[in-house]
């Protein structure tokens, strides 16, 4: 069963609804003790990095997320949930993240004529073969809404980019952990396909 972690940020119903509509067993949970029972874990989230980390700390969820990741089971971070997987973010000063993937989170530069936040439909590029991206074409658009993006230390943990003035990592992966900057639950057929791929994934590459 897939567990969607409710740590107090934003709208989890869409992630739940999307997986449920695909016929997967899914639950929204907030109790750290029950995390271990899931086969797959989703860390959703919108809003600020600091608020997200504070809520995770308050719920004593960070050690549990780390131990879930160490167990080798698939873990998916969506949007802010992806960014929290990294070491740190410079949103409102430097804040530490969960640190499952080495790297930092930075803001889009101002003044290159592009609007920030990056809101709307945009396509993926430089897609690397990976189970989570199975049969997802680079021409297809996904729904993005963010002002910050992930910069992993290791280039090879980026498995798809997106072009918004600069190419930024749209999908990152390290062993059984993946993160997507867009919202698959808001990206209609292509997004649902990605969620399906995640649900079918055993965490091996």
């Amino acid at each position, binding site marked *: 069963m897939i567990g969607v972690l409710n740590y107090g940020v*934003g*709208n989890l*119903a*869409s992630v739940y*609804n*999307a997986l449920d*509509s695909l016929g997967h067993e899914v639950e929204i949970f907030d109790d750290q003790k029950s995390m271990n029972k899931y086969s797959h874990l989703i860390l959703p989230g*919108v*809003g*600020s990095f600091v*608020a997200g980390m504070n809520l995770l700390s308050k719920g004593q969820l960070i050690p549990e997320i780390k131990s879930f990741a160490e167990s080798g089971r698939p873990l998916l971070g969506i949007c802010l949930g992806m960014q929290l997987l990294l070491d740190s973010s410079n949103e409102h000063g430097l804040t530490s993240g969960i640190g499952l993937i080495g790297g930092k989170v930075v803001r889009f530069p*101002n003044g290159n004529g592009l*609007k*920030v*936040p*990056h*809101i*709307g*439909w*945009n*396509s993926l590029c430089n897609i690397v073969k990976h189970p989570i991206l199975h049969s997802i*074409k680079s*021409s*297809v*658009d996904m*729904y993005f*809404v*963010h*002002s910050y993006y992930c910069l992993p230390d290791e280039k090879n943990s980026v498995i798809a980019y997106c*072009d*918004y003035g600069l190419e930024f990592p749209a999908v990152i992966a390290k062993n059984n952990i993946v993160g997507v900057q867009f*919202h698959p*639950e*808001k*990206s*209609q*057929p*292509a*997004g*649902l396909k990605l969620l399906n791929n995640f649900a079918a994934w055993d965490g091996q590459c």
Partner: protein
Amino acid sequence: MLKKRVIPLLLLRDGRVVKGINFQDYRDVGNPRTAVKIYSAQDADELVFIDTQGSKASRDYLVEILREAANECFIPLTAGGGIQSLTDARQLLMAGADKVIITSGAIEVPSLISQIAGHFGSQSVIACIEYRGFGNSAKVTYQNGSKSIDLDLIDYAIQLEQEGAGEIMLNSIEKDGLMSGYDINLAKQIVGSVSVPVIVSGGAGNFMHIFDLFRESDAAGAVCASLFHFGDNTPIRARSYLKNLNIQCRTLK
């Protein structure tokens, strides 16, 4: 490359979708549940719901419609109408909205936008600038055009961005429902003055109007109501028309 968005707008009144002209004389144009199903099947880029009444009953109905929409369409949903507090915004976001639209609340409740942005992030707040008139004589209005305030539109847009709005929606009362094209001049001015995305509402009567908006301004999205309510136009057809004219629109599959 980021694509241009075509965004159907559903105005809700007494449990129905309605459409007026110049914010008046609302006509019934259908059942919201049916509209959600149709727009979802027609692959709208995003859906906007606005409760035009702002009463307890109409808010409850909006929440109900949002819950259902979030259950069956996997696209971004935006909702507004009468949001005056963080609690109001939270209620809509928890019901399934990804973003809320604030119009009168931004004028009547100081710090409302910054409170919502602080809690849910800037990306969850669209500030709507409702106005009457054109060019330099355009006046910012609120409460469905019944009140006005002496603010320069550009200064106001900059102020809304500074307060934390992640997106700005322009809504011309004078263009509303006439299907004679968008107020592109003002769109250009506002787009050039803020660093957040701007979407434009009021006046779309055919696909050429959307094309004109995207060709002449750098607006991020075209909000359409009458265009889709009256006649057989759909978001799919709008995108294919725009793509033929080299406007970058979403590819689904």
